[in-house]
């Protein structure tokens, strides 16, 4: 096994920052190509007439998931060395809902607001400003909510670990749900475009 390269000590921190920058360029590029620099395109997801967000996100998830899985199967990538964000069930669900609300009101998420700022969207810049304020507020109230933030801690948890089904089976299920979801999303788009725009769009 040779990957993850960084964790096998193949290069140092300085180079890792350059790699971060290059990976970021790729990240920003594809986000913009997908249309994620536009709040209306992003928000459309929640009105069913343009399901691009769902399609792009789940295609990305499926691609990376298959990549990690098969590189691991072929012994090229040590899956155990990848960092998994620890699970805190209740804070993550509450945080998720807040993100959902923020998305409807603001039209972006932190990453896409950076992209939209880079292509000159003033609303993206204001949203980004809001994210700064939100995090600052979080930092200020952190001592008060620290107990809640750390509640229902479960450490590193995976779907296959919790459900006690093999990793490969979960991969298969996710692929099938995603592909089925894409077909369903395209159908919904047709229906709701007609509803909102009379099929003119």
């Amino acid at each position: 096994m040779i990957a993850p390269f960084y964790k096998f000590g193949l290069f140092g921190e300085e180079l890792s920052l350059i790699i971060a920058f290059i990976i970021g360029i790729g990240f920003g590029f594809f986000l913009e190509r997908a249309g994620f620099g536009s709040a209306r395109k992003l928000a459309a997801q929640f009105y069913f007439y343009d399901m691009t967000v769902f399609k792009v996100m789940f295609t990305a998830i499926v691609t990376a998931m298959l990549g990690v899985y098969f590189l691991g199967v072929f012994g090229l990538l040590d899956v155990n060395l990848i960092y998994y964000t620890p699970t805190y069930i209740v804070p993550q669900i509450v945080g998720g809902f807040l993100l959902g609300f923020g998305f409807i009101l603001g039209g972006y998420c932190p990453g896409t607001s950076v992209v939209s700022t880079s292509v000159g969207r003033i609303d993206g810049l204001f949203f980004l400003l809001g994210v700064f304020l939100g995090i600052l507020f979080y930092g200020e109230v952190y001592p008060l909510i620290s107990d809640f933030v750390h509640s229902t801690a479960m450490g590193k948890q995976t779907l296959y670990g919790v459900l006690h089904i093999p990793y490969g089976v979960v991969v298969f299920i996710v692929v099938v749900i995603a592909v089925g979801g894409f077909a369903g999303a395209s159908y919904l788009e047709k229906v709701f475009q007609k509803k909102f725009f009379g099929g003119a769009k």
Partner: protein
Amino acid sequence: MEEEMKIENGKEKAFHREYFPEKPYWNPYFAGIGLGLVSLSAFVIMGRGLGASGAISTIVATGVATIAPAHASGNEFYQNYLSTQENPLKDWLVFEVLGVLVGGFVSGLFAGRVKIKIEKGERISNATRLVFAVIGGMLMGFGAKLAGGCTSGQALTGGALLNLGSWLFMLSVFAGGYLIAYFFRRLWI
């Protein structure tokens, strides 16, 4: 098709439009595969995922530490983002987000999508849009920290790794969005 676009945009002042006529967005599946490969390369090269809110947290923590060092040193949250001697901005995610800024701009430039404007639904004013953008951003900043990551760090990264918390988070984001979407439809449609 491209000819039409050129004529349509000919009146715009932005000079690059002449050279880079506005193009349609990519096929979502192609863009998704691209994003997935970027995410995969982060796993393979670094053993970690992409992120966005983490970089902003680092910048906020650094800002607080610069203005009020004593206040920052007494707060566990800020301390998480401040290393003792090195410059805290020498952080992987900070550099990654700088890259996002460049990558987004390059993509937008070549597709003729770089323009200074406010994106909004047709029925609201610019001021309303900007106020809601700030409120939305604040909710998202707060929520992302509570959840230990945003759409990039949790949904995209944790989703691919089949991380339990990330999937619960992702479902909650969509649930939260669909829950209130109807009541705020004026903002977008």
